[in-house]
């Protein structure tokens, strides 16, 4: 029973990691940048959801708003910041790290802005779905209606993404331009525009993660920082450029964390992410579903 309980905890957190990992992988595939600002973007969209809920008093109305906001923020970041960087980028050791640094700067910027607007105090963004675990034959399992919503939400996002990527022209264009931007351009695809749409998808995934997970904790300008790290580790486990890998990586990490938490102790959780990452990188540098390109030259 304990093992099953632990697994259920892992399933819910793993779904959230998977969403964050999806967001990071989508951006990485098209832009070759690990978007550290994703945590900030998701925070901002969640605050927007929070505001909508304060006005409408309806969590279910606020979530779509948060998702749209997350998509719009991401598209804006790509179209304005990333494109400005690319225009001015030139060869050299600095130009390689410039985009990463820029996303860090953006993370700081969004954190400070949200802090200025909403303060650094912990806010409650509550869902009508209960946070109390279901009761099965007098045993309360650590899986609440809100956890169920998290898992369902993540599944819906993954389903929509899979359908778009596999069966639509937009999906084909998204895949083509992230694999081979130049050839796609020569095939007549407006790669810049497509990339921005890809960022919007990523932003939406991050926003779903933020809006669904926040009711189980609290909302503050840096309440999603840990999720960023977990999402990144999940993405690396999955190979950093595989969408399916991101989902699997998220679930593996979520369940792994849950077991560590259960059997080793709460205080190691933060450092566990680091050690899991190091172990994965040493054992399987390409991740479980990574492409053939080595990490050294990627």
């Amino acid at each position, binding site marked *: 029973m304990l093992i099953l309980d632990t697994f259920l905890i892992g399933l819910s957190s793993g779904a959230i990691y998977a969403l964050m990992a999806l967001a990071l992988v989508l951006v990485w595939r098209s832009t070759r940048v690990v978007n550290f600002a994703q945590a900030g973007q998701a925070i901002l969209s969640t605050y927007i959801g929070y505001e909508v809920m304060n006005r409408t008093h309806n969590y279910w109305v606020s979530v779509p708003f948060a998702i749209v906001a997350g998509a719009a923020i991401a598209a804006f970041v790509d179209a304005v910041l990333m494109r400005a960087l690319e225009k001015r980028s030139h060869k050299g050791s600095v130009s390689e790290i410039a985009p990463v640094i820029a996303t860090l700067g953006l993370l*700081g910027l969004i954190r400070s802005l949200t802090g200025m607007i909403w303060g650094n105090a912990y806010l409650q963004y509550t869902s009508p779905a209960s946070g109390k675990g279901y009761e099965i034959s007098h045993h309360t399992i650590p899986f609440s209606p809100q956890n169920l919503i998290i898992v369902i939400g993540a599944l819906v996002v993954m389903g929509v993404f899979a359908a778009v990527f596999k069966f639509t022209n937009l999906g084909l264009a998204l895949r083509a331009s992230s694999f081979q931007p130049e050839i796609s351009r020569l095939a007549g695809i407006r790669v810049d525009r497509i990339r921005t749409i890809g960022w919007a998808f990523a932003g939406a995934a991050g926003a779903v993660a933020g809006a669904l997970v926040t009711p189980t904790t609290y909302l503050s300008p840096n309440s999603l920082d840990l999720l960023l790290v977990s999402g990144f580790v999940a993405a690396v486990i999955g190979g950093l450029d595989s969408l399916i890998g991101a989902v699997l990586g998220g679930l593996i990490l979520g369940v792994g964390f849950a077991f560590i938490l259960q059997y080793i102790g709460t205080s190691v959780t933060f450092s566990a992410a680091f050690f899991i990452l190091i172990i994965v990188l040493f054992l399987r540098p390409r991740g479980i579903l990574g492409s053939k390109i080595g*990490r050294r030259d990627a």
Partner: protein
Amino acid sequence: MRKSKSLSALIFFAIGLFLLGLSNFVDELRAYQGAQVGIYVIAISSIILLTGFSGQISLGHGALMAIGGYSAVLSYNHWHFPMLLAFTFGAAVAALAGFILGMAAARLSGPYLAGTTLALAVGLPSLANQFHILGGEQGLSFDIGEAPKWIADKTGGDFTQYKWFFWISVTCTLFTMWFIKNLLQSRFGRTWRAVRGNPSAAALSGINIGRSKVLAFTVSSALAGLAGALLAMILGLVAPMAFTLTLSFTLVTGAVLAGVSNLGGSIIGALVLVVIPEITDAVATHLGGSEKISANLPGLITSVLLILTVIFAPNGPQLHKRNKSGKAKTQ
């Protein structure tokens, strides 16, 4: 060569004397801030050494500072190491950690290294809660005591605690700068430059790239460890809260503002980091802004500066100029 070396040592010595002398004419707050600038200079230099000269990125130097800080404090409190030895010990333990991390890092390219060091920055400080000896959330106190009597007597007048911090910080900073300057002119420095400029050519000419990267990581970590020990000194304690992710990001910001491959710029970067909160505080009080504003304004300004710098002067303001004049010469 020998002559220029002793000359540069002399110059460093002169700057040191000047700064120490200066400490007699400033108030307590400025002395404290001076000590802070010194610590930032060391920490930023450690990043510049790593990123600018060896092409690796680290978002986890805050964690390495924590390692240095905790080691120094533990050795001072428990084993009663003398202060200088405690600082050295802190740097050495951080160097060891950096060596191990560097072994992993040499196998990783940009995004993986950035993410791994990020995970370290988030994960490591929380280990403090795991081991009783590290003091949990409250951390450990660190009191280096007042300046020895002979120094206080020599300089005359009252020798305050902050002034003593300032003296130690300045001395360590100058020593570090002198050390880095010589290191960059040595064989290792030339190797790093070669590897950064053209890794394949460097490998073909017999340079062991992996080893050169690991060495850079080790030295950089030692410096970060020293900075961490100094930070613990002026804070009077080590605690997880002192080594947050924000600290790691701040250091990267400072390095970028300094111009990532310009060591002298570290002073500018450090000054900016110390001055910005000062200015924003003044602005916020003047505007009568709420606490929300004043608490977040420094972060806002540094972030905006960081973004503008990578867009408009990715090599730092100074190197940019040098590039231009360099081009003019060759034409």
